[in-house]
C-alpha cells in the first residue's frame, strides 16, 4: 500500500490523534467509559495502521519488536508491582489504600490509574505482536 498517496497522508494525519485518544481512554477510565483494555486496543490500532500503510519494516523501525515484547511483560509487571507495593506496605496484595494511607480514596484512584496503564501497555503491545507475527508470515509467502 506504499504507493497510495491518499492513504499515506490520511494515516500520517490520523495516527497522532488515535494515539492521544487511546491514552485518553486509558486515563479517563476512572471517570467515564473506557479503561486499560479498550484504550490499549485503540493505541495498538494506531501502530497497526502504520504497519498496514507503510509496511511492517517501517513499523519495526518505529517500534523495534524487542522493545514491544519487553513492554508486553512490563505491563503485567506494573500491575503486579502495584499489588506487591500494598503487600510490602503491610496490607493485602492489590490493596490500593496503602498508596496514600491517610486517604484511601485517593489511593484507590492512583492504584486504578496505574493498573489500567499496566493493562493498556500489555494489551497494546500484544496486539502489535500478533499483527507483527501475521504480517511477517504474509511477507514470507
Amino acid at each position: 500500500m506504499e504507493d497510495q498517496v491518499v492513504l499515506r497522508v490520511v494515516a500520517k494525519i490520523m495516527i497522532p490523534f488515535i494515539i492521544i485518544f487511546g491514552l485518553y481512554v486509558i486515563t479517563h477510565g476512572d471517570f467515564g467509559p473506557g479503561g486499560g483494555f479498550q484504550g490499549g486496543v485503540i493505541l495498538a490500532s494506531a501502530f497497526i495502521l502504520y504497519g498496514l500503510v507503510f509496511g511492517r519494516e517501517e513499523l519495526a523501525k518505529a517500534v523495534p519488536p524487542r522493545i514491544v515484547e519487553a513492554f508486553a511483560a512490563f505491563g503485567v509487571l506494573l500491575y503486579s508491582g502495584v499489588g506487591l507495593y500494598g503487600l510490602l506496605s503491610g496490607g493485602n496484595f492489590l490493596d490500593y489504600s496503602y498508596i496514600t494511607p491517610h486517604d484511601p480514596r485517593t489511593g484507590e484512584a492512583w492504584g486504578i490509574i496505574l493498573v489500567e496503564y499496566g493493562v493498556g501497555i500489555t494489551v497494546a503491545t500484544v496486539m502489535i505482536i500478533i499483527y507483527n507475527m501475521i504480517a511477517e508470515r504474509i511477507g514470507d509467502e
Partner: protein
Amino acid sequence: MISNLFIFDSILLLLVTITAITVVQVKDLFASSMLAGLYSLLMALVWTNMHAVDVAFTEAAVGAGISTVLLIGALVFTGRQEKKSDGVKPGALLIVVITGGALLYGTIDMPAFGDPNAPLHTHRGEKLLLQNVGKISLDEKGQRVDHPLYTESYQKEHWDLGDYGSGDEWNELAKSNDFYLHGAPHIPNTVSSLLADYRSFDTMFETAVILTAGVAMLILLRRREEDPEPTMDTADHDTIKGDN
C-alpha cells in the same frame, strides 16, 4: 406500548440477525470477515442502547477494529473461498436447536430489562457501589483504623437509602458534587472500580492471559534468525536438525 426505543432496538436486532446469518452463509471469506466486523459494530450500538457503554466500547474497538484486521491477516493463509460443505447434518442441527432452546428457556427466568425490582437493583447493586472490601486507613500514629468512609455507620448515615434505593434517589445522589468530591468511597466509573479494585485479581490474571497469548504467538510464529529458508516447513525441519 411501542416507544421509539423499542422500534430502534427492533430494527437493530433485526439487522444483527441478518448480518449473523449472512456471515455464515456467504462463501467469500473476505466478505464474511468484513460482515463480522459489521456485526460487532451493530452489537456495539445495541450495548449502547442498553447503557452498557463500557461493553460497547470494547465491542467496537476489539470486534469491529482489531479482530477484522487479524481475520483478514489469517485469510492470506487460508485462501479466499470457503470449501464446499457437506450440507446440513441432522445430528448437529439437533444439538444446536436443543442448546439454543435451553438458552432461550433460561432467559424466561431473567427479570425484564430495566426492571427496578430486579435482584441486582434491590440489594446487590447498592452493596457493590459501597463495596468496602479490605478498605483500611492509617491514623496519625500509623495504626490501622477503619477509614470513616468505609465504616458501616458512616455509610448508613450518608448513603443508606432504605431497603433499596430507587433509581431517582441514586440519580439525585450522583448529581450532587459532594458525592464524588467528598463522600463517594470510590471513583465515579463503577465499572472501572469493580474491575480494577473489587475484582483486581481477576483483571490481573486476565492481563496475564493476554501476555500469554502474545508469548504463544512469538513461540509459534516468530521466524528464527538462523533460518536460511523462512518458510514454516523448513523452519521446523531445521529446528529438528539443530536439536540433533
